[in-house]
C-alpha cells in the first residue's frame, strides 16, 4: 500500500485557503517548524518546546500572535453597547486600562474570551482569538447598534514579548514602557512607527503585547530578536506556558457549552454588572453564581510521568464518566504532567483525588489550586 496523499482538484471554493501572516518568512528564516493553526501558517517551535518554555520563564520570548483579531469599536456609547454582550464593567474602564472579558451567547455560553482596552478619546480596542475572530465580528455586527462601527485592524500585526526580562528588552527599544503596569496600555513609537503597547500577555509572566503596522513588523521583530534577552518562541511553548499559568484556552477549556461560572471565571463578572445584570445569559449566569454550576474547571497534577491530554475522561470508582480533561500535557517548569478538567462542582476542591481514563489506561490525579506556576505580573510602580 502506498501512503501517498492524493492531490484532488479543489472543487470546494468555500474551503478557506491557509493564509500567510506578515512574519511568515521571518519565522521560516529562523528555522521554525510551521503548522496550520486557526487558518494560518504559524510557528509551532524553533529549538524545541521544552527549551523555549524554560527560556521564557527565565528571560524573554518573542511570540507572533498576529492571527488574533484586533478590533477597534467606535461610536458614542460603544461601551454601553458592548456591555449588552459582555459581563465586564466596560463603562467604568478608565483610559488606557485593559479588562479581560467574555463574549457571551444568549444562553450564557462562552463564544470567546477577549481583552478590552479603553483608548484615549473613548474608543475601545478589543483583541479576540484567531480561531473565532470572524464569528466574533459577525456576532458583534449583528448585535451592536448600527451607529457603532467595528474596524477590523487586519493591517496590524501583534507580537508578544513575555518573561521576566521582557521589560529590559522592550524598554531599550521603546523607552517608557517600563512605566506601564499589568493591564494598562499606551501609545508609543519605535523608529517612527506607531505602536500600541499593552502590559499583558497569556503566559503568567510579565510582558507586553504590541500592535504594530504589518508593513513595519519584520523590522520590529528583528530589533526585538536582536536583544540578548529575547528568543523567538513557538505556539507549542505558548500553550504549555498558559497551561502552567492556569489560563483557559478558548476552543479547549472554554466553548459555547461552558459558562463563566463553570469555567471558574467569576472574576470576569464585574460587581456592578452582577448587580445590574443586562448581559447575554445574565439570568442563567447569575443563577449559577448564586447556586453553583453542575461542573467546574479545576487544575490537576497527574501522578507519574505520562501526560494525560484533552479528551481523556474523569471517571468515578465504578468507571462512570463524570467529567472531562480539556487541556493537559507535560509541564516543563513543574516537571510533571498537569491538566485542566471539568468535574462535578461538589468534587472541585483542592486535595480531591480523581481517576482519569485515557486510551484504556487509568491515571491518578489530584486537584490542586491554580496557577501551577505563580504569576509574575507587575501590578504597580516601575519594575526597577
Amino acid at each position, binding site marked *: 500500500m502506498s*501512503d501517498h496523499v492524493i492531490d484532488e482538484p479543489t472543487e470546494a471554493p468555500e474551503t478557506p485557503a491557509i493564509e500567510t501572516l506578515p512574519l511568515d518568512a521571518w519565522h521560516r528564516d529562523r528555522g521554525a517548524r510551521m503548522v496550520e493553526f486557526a487558518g494560518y501558517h504559524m510557528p*509551532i*517551535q524553533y529549538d*524545541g*518546546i*521544552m*527549551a523555549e*518554555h524554560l527560556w521564557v520563564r527565565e528571560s524573554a520570548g518573542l511570540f507572533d500572535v498576529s492571527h488574533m483579531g484586533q478590533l477597534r469599536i467606535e461610536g458614542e456609547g460603544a461601551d454601553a453597547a458592548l456591555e449588552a454582550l459582555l459581563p465586564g464593567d466596560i463603562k467604568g474602564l478608565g483610559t488606557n486600562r485593559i479588562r479581560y472579558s467574555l463574549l457571551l451567547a444568549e444562553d450564557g455560553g462562552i463564544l470567546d474570551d477577549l481583552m478590552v482596552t479603553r483608548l484615549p478619546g473613548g474608543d475601545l480596542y478589543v483583541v479576540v482569538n484567531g480561531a473565532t475572530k470572524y464569528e466574533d465580528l459577525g456576532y458583534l455586527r449583528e448585535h451592536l447598534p448600527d451607529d457603532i462601527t467595528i474596524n477590523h485592524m487586519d493591517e496590524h500585526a501583534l507580537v508578544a514579548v513575555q518573561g521576566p526580562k521582557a521589560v529590559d528588552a522592550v524598554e531599550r527599544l521603546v523607552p517608557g514602557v517600563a512605566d506601564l503596569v499589568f493591564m494598562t496600555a499606551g501609545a508609543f513609537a519605535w523608529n517612527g512607527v506607531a505602536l500600541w503597547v499593552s502590559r499583558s500577555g497569556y503566559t503568567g509572566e510579565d510582558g507586553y503585547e504590541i500592535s504594530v503596522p504589518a508593513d513595519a513588523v519584520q523590522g520590529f521583530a528583528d530589533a526585538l530578536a536582536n536583544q540578548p534577552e529575547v528568543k523567538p518562541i513557538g505556539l*507549542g511553548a505558548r*500553550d*504549555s506556558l498558559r497551561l502552567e499559568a492556569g489560563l483557559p484556552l478558548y476552543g479547549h477549556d472554554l466553548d459555547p457549552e461552558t459558562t463563566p461560572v463553570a469555567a471558574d471565571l467569576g472574576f470576569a463578572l464585574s460587581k456592578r454588572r452582577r448587580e445590574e445584570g443586562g448581559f447575554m445569559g445574565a439570568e442563567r449566569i447569575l443563577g449559577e453564581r448564586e447556586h453553583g454550576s453542575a461542573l467546574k474547571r479545576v487544575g490537576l497534577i497527574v501522578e507519574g*510521568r*505520562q*501526560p494525560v*491530554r484533552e479528551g481523556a475522561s474523569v471517571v468515578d470508582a465504578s468507571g462512570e464518566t463524570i467529567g472531562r480533561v480539556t487541556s493537559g*500535557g*507535560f509541564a*516543563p517548569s513543574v516537571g510533571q*504532567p498537569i491538566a485542566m478538567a471539568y468535574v462535578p462542582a461538589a468534587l472541585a476542591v483542592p486535595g480531591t483525588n480523581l481517576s482519569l481514563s485515557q*486510551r484504556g489506561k487509568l491515571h491518578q490525579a489530584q486537584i490542586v489550586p491554580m496557577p501551577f506556576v505563580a504569576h509574575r505580573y507587575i501590578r504597580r510602580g516601575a519594575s526597577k
Partner: protein
Amino acid sequence: MSRHYTSDHEWIDVDGDGATVGITDYAQGQLGDIVFVEVPDEGREVAKGGEAAVVESVKAASDVYAPVSGTVTQGNPALVDDPSLVNSDPEGEGWFFKLRLTHPSELEGLMDEAAYKEFVSGL
C-alpha cells in the same frame, strides 16, 4: 548483524533470532522533546505492525509499532528514568525493546538504510 527500517520510522537491528527495536533519528526530530516512554513487558507477544510501545512528547502521544512479530525479551529500563535518551541517542542507548523473532521472513519487506534515507528525503 543487520539493520532494517519501517515506513513508520522504527529501526530494527537483527542478530540471529534476536533483535533490538527503536525509533529513528528522523522520528525523534519530528516528535520533539520526549517526556514519557512506555515499553512492553518481557514475555509480551507482539505482531508485525501492531502497537508495541507508546512515546509521548510535550505536545503529542504516538504509538510505536513492532516492525516484525516476536516475543519481547526486554523493555529498555533506562527510558523509564530518562525518556530524553530517545532524543539524544535514538538509534543507540534510546532503544525501546528487544525481541525474539517468530517469523524472520517478515524482515524481507523492510527497508535498508539507503532505502530509508531516500524515503525520508521524500517526506
